[in-house]
């Protein structure tokens, strides 16, 4: 995320998804005439890097599984990228992002209620003390 912050799972997945999502977003911008060659180069670079990171993780599991099998007979680790932990991380990611969005909506709603003009009681002429 940033130097000094230790996370890698949630943030890593978020930025990989951000990099991949940038491609369809850029496609929409292109259709609307708001894209450029430089922008496409940037988006392609980010997406390629994200895909390379996923591929490297897959290769790592394969190599690790093979190596453990070679030396110890049977590997307790899967040889492919395990889906369950990825889905679990994705689930936490969705929960965190949704909670932040819900909190924003609640605060916005509360400030709208607070800022709403209060009804003012205007005494009717009949009951006015001046009468």
């Amino acid at each position, binding site marked *: *995320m*940033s*130097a*000094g*912050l*230790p*996370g*890698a*799972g*949630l*943030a*890593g997945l*978020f*930025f990989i998804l*951000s*990099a991949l999502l*940038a491609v369809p977003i850029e496609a929409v911008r292109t259709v609307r005439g708001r894209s450029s060659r430089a922008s496409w180069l*940037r*988006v392609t670079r*980010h997406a390629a*890097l994200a895909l*390379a*990171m996923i591929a*490297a*993780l897959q*290769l*790592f599991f394969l190599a*690790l599984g093979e190596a453990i099998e070679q030396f110890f007979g049977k590997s*307790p*680790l899967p040889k492919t990228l395990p889906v369950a932990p990825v889905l679990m991380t994705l689930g*936490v*990611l969705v929960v*965190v*992002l949704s*909670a*932040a*969005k819900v*909190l*924003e909506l609640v*605060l*916005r709603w509360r400030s709208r209620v607070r800022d709403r003009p209060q009804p003012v009681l205007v005494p009717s002429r009949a009951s006015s003390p001046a009468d």
Partner: protein
Amino acid sequence: MTLPRQHPSTFPLTAIVPAFNEAPSVAETIRSVQEQTLPPCNIIVVDDCSTDETAAVAEAAGAWVARPPDNTGSKAGAQTFALPFVATEYVMALDADTTLARDAIERMSKAFEDPEVAAASGSVIPRQVSTMWERGRYVEYLFAFSFYKRIQDHYGKPLISSGCFSLYRTDKLREIGGWSNRTLAEDMDLTWTLYQRGHKVRFLPDAVCYPIEPHNLDLMRKQLRRWSHGFVQNLRLHWRDVLGLGYLRSMVSLAFWDSILASIGYLFAIPVLALLVNGAFAFAYVLDAPVILVPVLLSAHSRREVGRALASFPAYFPLRVANALMVLKAVFVELVLRRPLHVYEKGH
């Protein structure tokens, strides 16, 4: 009082270099600014009541030296002290132990072709890479600046305009009162404040600076303590406003929860599972190594430093555990005990 221009630069920029006992490094910093392809008009070194020869060294190197009557107690205080002397359209913050690549300012100046941009920062690479802590930081920076930060910039919200080297529009900086010392991470505070005011912040990967990073555990501990507390303090200060800023909201909420969950994992869950259930759980410490290695090696390749990156790579993991410890402690002290840290400890 404002300064007359020292250098007839075409780019109206003043460099502010806050310094407290920086005699060994400040001359090299000033020289790297003077040798820029687009040098600033003025260089102000704020000698924050140093007890060494910082002022004399800076003056001899050709900078204008400002000295507050008392030690300001923080980098933010020293920088803001110099702001009234600035008479140029742009101002640059540069740490006294940080040098610049020759074209850093020229590259960064391009960000301001967009009139909505109020701040810009560039890539950071440790100048010295020899101890384990410097090597860990080197890998951490290569990863963050070649992947995370570029994507943040693509979505228009770099998380921080790094305090060690950033450029700002002077009027926008003055509008918000300069650098604030209400948190220990003045750069994060400033960046988020600029977003709240509707300004843009950019990250220019090709504008590179080289700070001296903590070389031992004691200095690293001080720096991480400041950063961790600064992050939590900024969360407490800005959370309501950050919630309304789409992509920044996502990043900040993830940074917070990722830091907590990862810290609990590294410090408690993984060792307990490895000791009590199966030793193979210890692999979890390095399970994401390939994900980190890919952008690190690509970035190192473009810098012709693949050997250095590979040799430094293992050092990233102990640094990450140290990060985890400091973040968890900061969250506990700031949010649970409600004891904010105010003392600015220098750790580079």
